[in-house]
Structure formats: C-alpha cells, structure tokens
C-alpha cells in the first residue's frame, strides 16, 4: 500500500481547508458594461445564491425576452454546499488516512467537479440566451444572447465578461495544489524505483 510524503499530506490538507472559503466568498462573476453603464453591472454567483445588480440585469434583459434571474431557477444552489462539503471532507480524509490511491481519487473528483460545473453553467447559459419570450419587445431574427462561458463577448449594446471570482480562484489554486501533489508523488516514487 502506497502512502504519501508528509509534505504531500500537509499540502492536500491545506488545499482542502482553502476550499472552505467557498462558503464565504463569491465563486464566479459576470460583469457587463454598456454605454449607459460605464460603471458596469455585476452579478456574483455564490455557493448558494446570486448577488449584485441582478434586478437591474433582469429589468434590462426582459426587453429581449430573457427570463428574470431568480435564485429558485437554480437547483444547483440546493446541493452545491454538500458537494463542496464532500470534497473538503474527502481531501482531509486523504491527508489523514495517508493513502496514495485516495489522492488519485481526490484529484479525479476535483477535475470532474470543475468540468461538471462548467458544463452545467454552459447549459444554463445556453437556455438563458436561447429560450426567449417570443413576444419580447426586441426580437432580432437569428440573434441569441448566450453569455460567455469564460471571457468576454459583445451582446448588443453590452460587453459581457464571465470568469472566476475570488472564491473561484481559491478553488483553482486548491485544485492546482492537489494535482501538483499528485505529480510530485508520482515523480518522487519513480525516482526511488
């Protein structure tokens, strides 16, 4: 049974603990600018809610038939707290039980969660941008308004940006630490052989 180096156990534990921040800071942000909004509008996505200028964004988006953004639209907010909790627990357990196989599994879980989150977000964005009210005031044939997954995109008079918020960045750092630890373990164990 392969075990982990003490440094690896420490790093994995730290990475897991860092993820606790997800409960206290926003994970993702969408920023929007228009000629009339030089100060910008922002929407912050937290682990269980949305904050920022959501009402203003909804009020503007109703012209093109987009749905009003409500917390209730996202079942994710109901279970994301458990998924992240599970990841933190699994990470701490990995450090505690000192099994290399668990580090493999943990790395896999993190990558899978990140991929699933992005796919989920893209699917929501697709629906939000395409599933428009046919009686909306502004109806441009062929035009859809899917927000960018990551990066910047021009949507009519708005420039929209989507990317990680502080919590998202901490999550990325945590994931990087775990993957780097796994790499470090593989590299050092090969050298030993």
């Amino acid at each position, binding site marked *: 049974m392969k075990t982990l180096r003490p440094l690896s156990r420490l790093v994995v534990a730290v990475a897991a603990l860092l993820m606790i921040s997800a409960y206290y800071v926003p994970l993702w942000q969408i920023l929007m600018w228009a000629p009339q909004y030089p100060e910008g509008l922002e929407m912050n996505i937290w682990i269980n809610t949305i904050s920022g*200028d959501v*009402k*203003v964004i909804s*009020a*503007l988006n109703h*012209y093109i038939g987009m749905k009003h953004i409500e917390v209730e639209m996202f079942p994710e907010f109901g279970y994301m707290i458990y998924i992240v909790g599970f990841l933190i627990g699994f990470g701490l357990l990995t450090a505690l039980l000192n099994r290399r196989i668990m580090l493999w599994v943990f790395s896999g879980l993190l990558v899978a969660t990140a991929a699933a989150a992005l796919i989920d977000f893209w699917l929501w964005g697709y629906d939000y941008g395409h599933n428009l009210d046919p009686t909306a*005031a*502004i109806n441009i044939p062929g035009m859809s308004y899917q927000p960018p997954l990551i990066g910047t995109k021009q949507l009519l008079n708005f420039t929209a940006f989507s990317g990680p918020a502080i919590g998202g960045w901490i999550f990325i750092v945590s994931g990087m630490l775990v993957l780097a630890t796994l790499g470090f373990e593989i590299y050092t164990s090969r050298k030993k052989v």
Partner: protein
Amino acid sequence: MLMVPVVLASALLWQSCKPKAPASVSVGDAASKAYVAPGKYDEFYNFVSGGFNGQMSVYGIPSGRFLRNIPVFSEDPTTGYGYSEETKPMLNTSHGYVPWDDLHHPALSTTNGEHDGRWVFGNANNTPRVARIDLKTFRTAEIIELPNSGGNHSSPFITENTEYVVAGTRFSVPVGDKTDVPISTFKENFKGFISFISVDRNDGKMKIAFQLKTPGISFDLARAGKGPSHGWFFFSCYNTEQAYTLLEVNASQKDKDFIMAVNWKKAEEYIAAGKGEKVKAKYAHNWYDESTHTATSEILTEVLQLDPALLKDIIYFIPCPKSPHGCDTDPTGEYIVGSGKLAALIPVFSFSKIQQAIANKEFEGEFAGIPVIKYEAALHGEVKKPGLGPLHTEFDGKGNAYTSFFVSSEIVKWNVESLQVLDRVPTYYSIGHLSVPGGPTKKPWGKYVIAYNKITKDRYLPTGPELAQSAQIYDISGDKMQLILDFPTVGEPHYAEAIPANLVMPNSVKIFKLEENKHPYVALGEGQAKVERKGNQVHVYMTAIRSHLTPDNIEGVKLGDEVYFHVTNLEQDWDVPHGFAVKGANNAELLIMPGETQTLKWKPLSTGVFPFYCTDFCSALHQEMQGYVRVSPTGSNVPLKFSTGKIEDETNGAGL
C-alpha cells in the same frame, strides 16, 4: 477745402480724448482656469440662492456648470413639488398654502466652524420661513415658519456647530393682541424679533428655541461669532430712525445705525433660569419623511420669548456708519466687518475690544433700553476710501478680506489686520453678494471669489427686456484678482456658498430602497398594483418600471370622482426616474425617483377616455409607456376594473 482735413483731424482728436468704456475681456490663461473637461467633475458644489424664484440652484465651480435647481419655497411643476399630495404640506403656513417666496441666503451647516456637508439652509424673505435642505438627496427636508416676523431677511445664518439658525426680521411689525393699529404708531406698537432656531445634531430637526424681543428697527444681515467669539451673534440694523414711510430718505437720516451684538449663551442662561415667557403664536412646521415619502405639516401655537430690555447683558448696540448691510466675522472670530451701504469707509470692530468696552461700561447711552457701546471703544480700525457702497465681505483664510461695492461695481481686496487696500477689480455690473468657498467659516478654502451681480446689460445676448442674471468667478490664488469666467444663473442670485465636492458627493443618494418604502399607498411590485374605491375617491396603486405602467387600463371611474394616482417607481437602478401625467389634470406631473411613491390627484371634469404616460425618457421603449383611464357619467354602472397586458375580446363590453 482746407477746412475738411482740419475738421476731420480735430474730430479724431476729440474722439481719442473721450474716456473709453471699461475693459471687459478677461486675459491670459483665464479659460484654462475655468475649464473642466467633459466627463470630469468640478472641484466645488456651489449653492446659489434663486432670489425671487424661491429656489436654490447648484452649480459646479470653477466651470459654472448648472447642475440642479432645488425647489424650496416655490412650487415646481417640473418635479411635482407642491403639486403632489406628498409635497403639498411642505408649503403650508399659518396663512394657508403659499406657493411662492423669495430665497436670499443659503447657509451650509458647520461643525467646529467648518463646513460639514450635511445640510444647507435657506430663508424665505416674504412669508418668513427657514428651510433645511438635505445634501444626501438635494431636497427640501423641512420648513419652519417664523411668527412675529415681517420679512425674514436677516437669516439663516448659523452658529459654529449649527446649534442655531437665526432669523431676524427686516420689517418690525405690531405683535400679540394689538396688531390692528395705525401704522403711525410704529414707535409704540412695532417690535422687531430675532428667532433662534435650534437644529438637532442627529436628524437636523428645527425648532424655535427662543425669540428675542428687540426695538422696532430693521435687521438686515448677520453672522455668528466663531472661535473666541463663539456664543455671540452679530446683526446689522438699519432704520434706527424708526421710519415707517419713505425709508429711502427717512431711514437714512442718522449718521450711524447699529451692529447688534447678541450674547446667545447669556440668553440660554436666562431660559435655564426660567426667565423666558411663553407667548401665543401661530406658525407652521413642515417636514418630509423619507420612509413614507410624505410631508407632514403641523401648526404650532406657542413660542418662548425673552425681553432683552429687561434681561440685561443679552444684547448691545455698536454704532456703525450709514445703514449697515453686511455684517461679517473673519475666520479668527476676532473681527467684525460692518458695511454701511452709504458709507465711504468700512469699520472693522474687534471682539476683544467689545468685551473690554462692556466690562468697562464704555457706553455712549441707551437705545430703547439697550446699552450702546462707544464707537471708538469697539473699533479695530477703518478701511479708508475703499470704494462706494460696500455691501458684503468674505475672507480667504490668509488674512485678507474681499468686499463687494455695489455703487462703484467692484471687488476690493484688503488686509484685515493692517486695513490696507491691496487690489481691486471691476464687476459687470453692480455686484451684490460675493462668496469665497468656505468664506464664512473658520477655514476658508480660498481659491476663488464669486461675484453675484444685479445688472448684466451687455454681458450676454439680449433676451428682450428681461436679461440673464449673472455670476462671475475671479481667481484669487495670486496677489491680483483675475476674472476667469462669467456664468448665468437661474432666478436672481443673492448670497451663495461653495463647498468642496468631496464633502458632499460620497453621501449622495442614488436610489430609495424599495424595501424601506413605508408609503401607505405603495405597491411593492406589479402584483400589488390595484384600484380601490372609497366613496367618491378612487385610489390607483400604480407601478412604473421600464417600460410599462401597471395598471395601464382603468375603467369604472365616474364623473365627480377624485382619482389619486399613487405611482411607485419599482426601479432600483441609478438615474432611472419615471414621470407621470394624465390629460387635463389641473395640476402638474409627478417625477418619481427609483423606489419612491408619489401621488397625483386628478378630478376629471368630463367623461371619456383619458391618456396617461411616463414623462421622463426612461428607456428605449419610453414612448410605449402609456395607458388609458375611462371616465363614465355619474351613476353609470361600468364596473371598476384594471389591467395591464390583457387583451380583451372586442365585443366584450362594447356599448357599455
């Protein structure tokens, strides 16, 4: 033939001998000093009285850009002030609803003698009142009426920590039970009153703390002491002749009138000792509640008075040449500048000398039972031959004073300590008040002096017999004053005060929070929009959001009904007001800020279908933001109904 060139030459010579009109073009780098690039902010907010428009206007300095007109004492159809049900009580007085007044002097609130950016006060000169404007919203928050006053000119000057706002009457009037008296009994029956209005430190609420019963003369202007003279107030007085007709002549007979020094701390002591007398009076007190978005007016019936003729040591008179107008204390609080508007000199009084004179009883006599201090005993010195018709003085914080001269139409800079004249510049034309940013405080910001002129004549494109009113900015950062900009103002500007933008801007409210809206007729969402009938009153709980009104179809209103449109702006976004107007309303529009509720009362006078719409260009589909209200004959059986976005079968209801 020889004569022709001789005549021509002498004609030319004659022309060159004639005096030239004064130079009126600013020179050098003036433009760059007043230039604020598009999109950049000005350094100062400038609060300028609107005079006979009864309002206060706000300009950026140094650009002179007009930012806002704040309705205060006059109704304003643009914003609905005085027209909406919520704001009507603001203009209530003991004489009923008064739709107009004459605002002369703004006074910015201070803490420790420096501007704190919380409120600006203004006086109503005609129907005596004082208003408080909240600088978070730039709206009139409170108005208090002054009983026993005949014209509130000597107002609203304030003490170091805004403990009091004063209000001295320009007209003495008969008071109490004996008001129906012959005008010729002036000396016997007419009294002057000075009101001290206390201001609550926390919420700004005003209350008449006490009134001083003073002899029947006219009070013109005033300034509080500061620093060492904190606790005292100085008022300029004219018509000590006690004339009641042709004052132009009859009030100008005496060589000297007075500066009245008031020891208000002493007055407080007398009140604490129970020496005040509660006297019947009738006056209105109106305030605007930001959570209900509604004003309340109450009529008060009593005021506390002190009689300084009986209660010694509250007031003293200091002789001051020729009908003093301005009465200004310098930033140190030691010097009081009296400006006799017919005098050819400016006397400067010393606070410490006044105290000494009182202690040593250096009095030249009494006026109506009040001691008169000897002129020389109170005098620091005189500025000799400064100009003609001195009116007002402001200070730059570097020991210099700037006095406006109406008759010689100029600003004169002089040193307060040495009394030497340092510089003079012409104004265009006939300057009244002048203002240095922070000029009346302990810490003037200096930089500019702004002239407020009474005559503009040829300065702007003519607009018929009524011409633009004007202000002029002079750079005073160097030794020489330099004219850098003329800018027109709204109404007639009297006094003005400027304050650094950073003391006001961060507190500026962007929206009213909907969840804090406690208006009794609020609709906190389209789901709450409704129409209710109470007897012949129809209450429409309407919402406005880009770009529709809910409800936008209303039926069942009958002739004889009073319709109240209570419109709530559901927006929570900066700079998205909605307006509301209905055809034929004998009223005005509403301009409703985000999160606010305002009410327009409408009494239809004929049957039919009346359009209503949003008057503020709110969005791309603003023009679609409209609706109809149907008015049926009295006794008709059209049911009360309302909707938005409901398209009915055309046959349904046809012919009803």
